[in-house]
């Protein structure tokens, strides 16, 4: 499918706009900002998974005159971090319930770090322990539930030649942006605060400040500093830190810096949700899958945060990119007494698609079919109908990405070779090689009616002095927002990219363009930016009668400034019914395939991922270099998820909460990544882009696990596929405990105060 105009297409890809500042060390991240007279802030946190807070004791022997102390009593507004539900407090009040380890209870600030460190040791929390819940299957508190049905699953299973069952578990994953969370609050002259920070969503923090501090829109000002990575991890928690910094700034009437160190960031901030997914799949001998019965449980942690929306995406994606006549998906998200889980690239889909793809590979093995052929047989094609009854009307590229990946990786040929070497394997062999394939879809933008409800706005202005400027709250955190938006506008106006400026992401200057999440920036906000530029061009050309590029300066001089505010307009023919949970769950889908080659050490059972061919349909490539960068980075995060990234918990506390113990891949661990970009555009936006950020995250892990099976013959059902789990599967010993579920210390178990 093609569209006639390609306004988003770059002729020559421009260099990253803020690149020189990042490369010379002059880009200012939050901790680089200097505010004379500023104090340092810190957070006193719970050290129990669940308890009643009886008192906060300050040591009377300590000189508290040098320290500002803030507790829940000092919160001027609602003691709530504004999000989907109003259940998470800014600080646990005395008499209230501590629901997880590392939960914020009190705040301190002092002029220097020494005083602050000393003061921290002089605060004691008095508590009464309450029984925590760690196992999501034992939890009785449900945050959300979704049920999807298509056809008749029971009849489908009954008619199948074979029914294959499997349970898959995944644990937490940390976003691990290299810049830790950081916020600085500065009291405003006219009341209220300015918060500078490392964040994805300026208006989320803005909303939280207004509610928690009971201040007006103008008194809450949020300014994004250069942001050293987000990946979802700076979507919601900055609201909490921004409130904390602001409370201390208002108390001291000074700038207050809340700069997390790595330990605090790992111990307290959100992670990818652990999940338990069970599949029953009915398949015919010819490879047709006739029924999918899927049960999905997400562990939300202690508060609602974004969990219902994560569950929604996880549920809709749980069957994988396959047109199956009979489907039942039951998804629920539950509370446990562990730190709340939240957004991380993929947002529920990587969990459910790991399960779906591994299950399909096992189904293929059970009927003696190749993983490639079983996908060819079942993949969605144009006109396919999803479990929400959405008809796929355009931009369907599952087949194309699958074939391109199989071809580029020589999947069939390599697989014959690995099978031969498996057949000849002798006890003297020290390594085993394998190849694995995975296919995924990823809904572009918000789920369901999310975008229509958000009511986002982007502005493009021609200032009185003749400068074209984009005003948007969409943030740059590595993806290249500040490069692609000027590209889109410059193309629409016929200007060189240098002639288009980006206003800073400051709520006092830019409208609410919605959050920088859900791979929506290029598609949704980019589309609105083009629409705004088009209206600006028409206004100016209408007045001057000449092309915009040669007349806009004259128009500005004669007519003064022109500003176009472009609100989101729902895409024609796209609709979703929240009540029945049916309809167009997404305006479009992106499609991705990955083929991984691995080498497994047969002594240590370590996995080296040698190469990955990643094929991603992004609708339309705006900037090839930036787009490939997204695929490469997402692919490596998926490799980490598959092989080494795991959080262990004891009594609900993360045990490996340092960078010495939570490992991510280095340059030596990373596979050689070959990226192939496919363009199957979304017709609802002028440039056709469908977004790219999350897409590669969905396919990497199942491809790696399939390759481990090809190398060793062992199916790994739990992520990550650590040496311990592979050894257990091959040698027949007990595997390590399920990922994501806390163990209980002997003392706590003996006290009998844990419901399990």
């Amino acid at each position, binding site marked *: 499918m093609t569209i006639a105009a390609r306004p988003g297409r770059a002729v020559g890809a421009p260099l990253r706009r803020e*690149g*020189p500042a990042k490369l010379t060390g002059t880009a200012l991240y939050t901790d680089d900002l200097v505010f004379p007279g500023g104090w340092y802030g810190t957070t006193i946190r719970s050290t129990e998974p669940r308890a009643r807070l009886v008192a906060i004791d300050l040591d009377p022997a300590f000189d508290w005159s040098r320290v500002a102390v803030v507790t829940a009593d000092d919160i001027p507004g609602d003691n709530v971090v504004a999000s989907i539900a109003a259940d998470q407090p800014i600080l646990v009040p005395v008499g209230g319930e501590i629901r997880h380890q590392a939960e914020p209870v009190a705040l301190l600030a002092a002029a220097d770090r020494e005083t602050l460190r000393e003061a921290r040791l002089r605060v004691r929390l008095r508590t009464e322990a309450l029984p925590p819940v760690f196992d999501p299957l034992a939890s009785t508190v449900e945050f959300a539930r979704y049920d999807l049905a298509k056809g008749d699953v029971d009849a489908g299973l009954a008619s199948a030649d074979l029914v294959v069952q499997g349970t898959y578990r995944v644990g937490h994953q940390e976003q691990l942006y290299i810049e830790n969370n950081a916020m600085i609050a500065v009291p405003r002259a006219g009341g209220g605060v300015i918060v500078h920070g490392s964040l994805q969503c300026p208006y989320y923090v803005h909303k939280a400040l207004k509610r928690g501090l009971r201040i007006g829109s103008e008194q809450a000002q949020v300014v994004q500093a*250069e942001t050293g990575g987000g*990946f979802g991890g700076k979507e919601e928690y900055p609201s909490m830190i921004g409130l904390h910094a602001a409370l201390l700034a208002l108390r001291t009437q000074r700038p207050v810096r809340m700069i997390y160190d790595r330990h605090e960031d790992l111990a307290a901030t959100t992670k990818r949700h652990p999940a338990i997914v069970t599949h029953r799949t009915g398949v015919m001998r010819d490879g047709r899958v006739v029924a999918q019965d899927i049960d999905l449980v997400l562990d939300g942690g202690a508060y609602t945060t974004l969990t219902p929306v994560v569950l929604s995406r996880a549920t809709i994606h749980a069957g994988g990119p396959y047109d199956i006549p009979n489907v039942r998906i039951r998804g629920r998200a539950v509370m446990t007494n562990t730190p709340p889980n939240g957004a991380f690239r993929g947002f529920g889909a990587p969990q459910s698609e790991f399960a779906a793809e591994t299950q399909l590979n096992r189904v293929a093995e059970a009927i003696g079919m190749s993983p490639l052929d079983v996908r060819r047989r079942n993949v969605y094609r144009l006109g396919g109908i999803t479990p929400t009854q959405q008809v796929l009307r355009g931009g369907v590229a599952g087949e194309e990405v699958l074939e391109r990946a199989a071809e580029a990786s020589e999947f069939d040929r390599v697989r014959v070779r690995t099978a031969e070497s498996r057949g000849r394997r002798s006890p003297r062999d020290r390594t085993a090689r394998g190849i694995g394939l995975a296919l995924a879809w990823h809904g572009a933008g918000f789920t369901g009616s999310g975008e229509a409800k958000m009511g986002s706005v982007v502005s493009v202005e021609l200032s009185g002095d003749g400068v074209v400027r984009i005003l948007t709250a969409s943030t740059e955190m590595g993806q290249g927002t500040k490069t692609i938006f000027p590209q889109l506008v410059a193309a629409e106006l016929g200007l060189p990219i240098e002639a288009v400026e980006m206003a800073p992401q400051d709520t006092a200057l830019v409208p609410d363009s919605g959050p920088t999440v859900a791979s929506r920036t290029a598609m949704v906000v980019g589309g609105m930016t083009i629409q705004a530029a088009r209206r600006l061009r028409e206004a100016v050309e209408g007045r001057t009668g000449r092309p915009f590029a040669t007349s806009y300066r004259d128009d500005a001089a004669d007519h003064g400034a022109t500003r176009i505010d472009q609100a989101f307009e729902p895409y024609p023919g796209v609709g979703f019914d929240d009540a029945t949970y049916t309809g167009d769950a997404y305006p479009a889908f992106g499609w991705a395939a990955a083929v991984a080659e691995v080498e497994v050490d047969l002594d240590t059972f370590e996995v080296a991922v040698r190469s990955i061919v990643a094929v991603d349909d992004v609708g339309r490539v705006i900037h090839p270099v930036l787009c490939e960068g997204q695929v490469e980075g997402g692919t490596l*995060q998926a490799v980490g998820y598959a092989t080494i990234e795991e959080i262990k918990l004891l009594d609900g506390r993360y045990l490996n909460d340092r960078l010495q113990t939570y490992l991510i891949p280095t340059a030596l661990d*990373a596979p050689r990544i070959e990226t192939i970009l496919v363009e199957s555009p979304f017709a609802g936006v002028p440039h056709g882009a469908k977004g790219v950020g999350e897409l590669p995250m969905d396919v990497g892990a199942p491809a790696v696990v399939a390759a481990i099976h090809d190398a060793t013959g062992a199916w790994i059902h739990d992520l990550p596929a650590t040496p311990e789990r592979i050894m257990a599967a091959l040698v027949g010993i007990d595997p390590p405990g399920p990922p994501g579920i806390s163990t209980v210390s002997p003392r706590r178990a003996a006290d009998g105060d844990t419901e399990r």
Partner: protein
Amino acid sequence: MSYHLTVNGTATEVAVPGMRRLLDVLREDLGLTGSKEGCGEGECGACTVLIDGAVAVSCLVPVCQVDAAVITTVEGLATPTTGLSSLQQAFLETGGAQCGICTPGMLLSGQAFLDSGAEPTDDAIREAIAGNLCRCTGYTKIVEAVALAAGRRDETGA
């Protein structure tokens, strides 16, 4: 105590406790905030600088150990007259910097590799930057950038 350092070609004296981290001296006493703190325990490499030409993580180095040393930070790579260094230019062209927080440290490890004159094979480049974590790029375009800069060096003999 007072310590004498040459930082990016400029002789400097700092009067600070000897156990103060070099990273804090650079960022807070000298205002050179290009070097970043990602973990404070030598794992991430965001604070990487060159000490007498050798790669070091400045969060683990007390200033008393670098008295009289020559320090290079990211601020010392580009100059107003020559502009971006060859390696910085290569990062810009290949897309080696995304969020940019690992970039200063990555550049110094890459520069030390280029200065060593080693053959720029894929494996050798990866080994040279293995102490610098990047969460954005998958390392592909960083390795390309170092190889590109090495190629230009070998072409021009510079």
